[in-house]
């Protein structure tokens, strides 16, 4: 590695938060799986003076399945998600994103909090978590606060986390009984590929009406985002092909993709329209 840094390896959460708080003007970064951060340091995009390794912080591991909410620790790895039958039942979109996430070694070490905090517009776990109405717990030595994931991103690679805070917990309400929660990753290949267009959808229905609609998009805007314009068209209505087309069009209009090495902006917009239509129509069919 080219850029030297100091490394603290605390063995509990209090130690980790204290290490993050003791900056003394240094640039201090928390280190979880390192699957983004070590690469960024090697490329000179991040230049920390000190890192706080979180491997020994057991408080950041574990999952809770309460009667109303599911909660997972920030250091839950992508592979941990895949090994949990409860997560498979309770968050199918998250499992689909986890299945196609990076390669085996990256899934084994990359964490949920790290994927969120990386701020990448292509972060695959974020669209599913947005459609699950996830909430983050941000903890520092001085304070603990909760924040909706929907309010976390402020702009391209800008987030609401203060440098002395950790994302300690991610939680979301259990899905309603009649609901479908799904994710589609469009990429050049299935394994270890950066997402060209990612679409996650949650639909819930009661009495022939769509009661909840959540649609979130990756890789087609500076941040992973919900398209509330499209959601609002669906909620409270009985869905028809025409209405689903309208929502797909609204999603395509709301996104702001760019041309890059993986795809053109036009292609991304086209695939947002097609995938939104396909996922919403498929979910509605399953609910009928």
């Amino acid at each position, binding site marked *: *590695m080219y*850029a*030297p*840094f*100091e*490394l603290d*390896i605390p063995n509990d959460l209090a130690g980790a938060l204290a290490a993050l708080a003791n900056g003394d003007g240094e640039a201090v970064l928390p*280190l979880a*799986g*390192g*699957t983004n951060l*070590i*690469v960024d*340091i*090697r490329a000179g995009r991040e230049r920390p003076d000190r*890192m706080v*390794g979180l*491997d020994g912080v057991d408080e950041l591991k574990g999952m809770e399945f309460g009667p109303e909410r599911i909660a997972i620790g920030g250091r839950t790895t992508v592979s941990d998600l895949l090994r949990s039958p409860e997560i498979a039942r309770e968050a199918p979109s998250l499992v689909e994103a986890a*299945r196609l996430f*990076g*390669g*085996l*070694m*990256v*899934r*084994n*070490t990359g964490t949920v909090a790290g994927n969120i905090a990386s701020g990448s517009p292509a972060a695959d776990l974020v669209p599913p978590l947005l459609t699950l109405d996830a909430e983050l717990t941000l903890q520092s030595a001085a304070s603990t606060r909760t924040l909706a994931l929907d309010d976390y991103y402020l702009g391209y690679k800008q987030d609401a986390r203060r440098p002395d805070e950790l994302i300690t917990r991610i939680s979301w309400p259990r899905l309603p009984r009649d609901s479908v929660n799904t994710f589609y990753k469009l990429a050049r290949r*299935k*394994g*270890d590929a950066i997402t060209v267009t990612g679409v996650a959808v949650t639909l819930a229905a009661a009495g022939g009406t769509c009661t909840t609609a959540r649609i979130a998009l990756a890789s087609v805007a500076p941040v992973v985002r919900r398209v509330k314009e499209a959601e609002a068209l669906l909620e409270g209505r009985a869905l028809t092909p025409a209405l689903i087309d309208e929502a797909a069009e609204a999603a395509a209009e709301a996104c702001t993709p760019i041309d890059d090495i993986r795809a053109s902006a036009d292609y991304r917009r086209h695939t947002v329209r097609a995938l939104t239509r396909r996922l919403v129509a498929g979910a509605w069919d399953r609910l009928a």
Partner: protein
Amino acid sequence: MSETRNITLRINGRGEEGRFPAHRTLLEALRQLGHMEVKCGCEKGDCGACAVLLDGMAVDSCLTLAWMAAGKEVTTVSGLGDLDAPHPLQEAFADSGAAQCGYCIPGIIIAAQAIIAENPEPSEDDIRLGLSGNLCRCTGYTKIFEAIADAAREMRAEGGEQ
């Protein structure tokens, strides 16, 4: 600056001491200690050439800091077996001709061991998904998939003691 420390790494069942700065990766440390069987490829977590088992879990050693591996069991491809007592995966790769230039194979065998340890009877789809973090640029994946399926069968027949 970066503090330097003496740490003990447990590699293939033996303790080995080295003096490393905080920013030294496990890949760099292993090669510095002479474990040239661990290969350096992309250093970005894309190619898997540097994969080792850390307490039985496959990781990219290029993304792991050496200090963080202290106290854990590191297994390289040489720790699985050698010419005198090859691991069923090593035998199957040789029998199938699954290696061309061979550079990716140490990492692929480590990933394969992790795949089989978690699922003794992997489907071809399980093998493909499990190898999604390993690149072979000689393009020879078919024989690699066959070798892993053969080794899994062999290991099941042996009673799964590996």
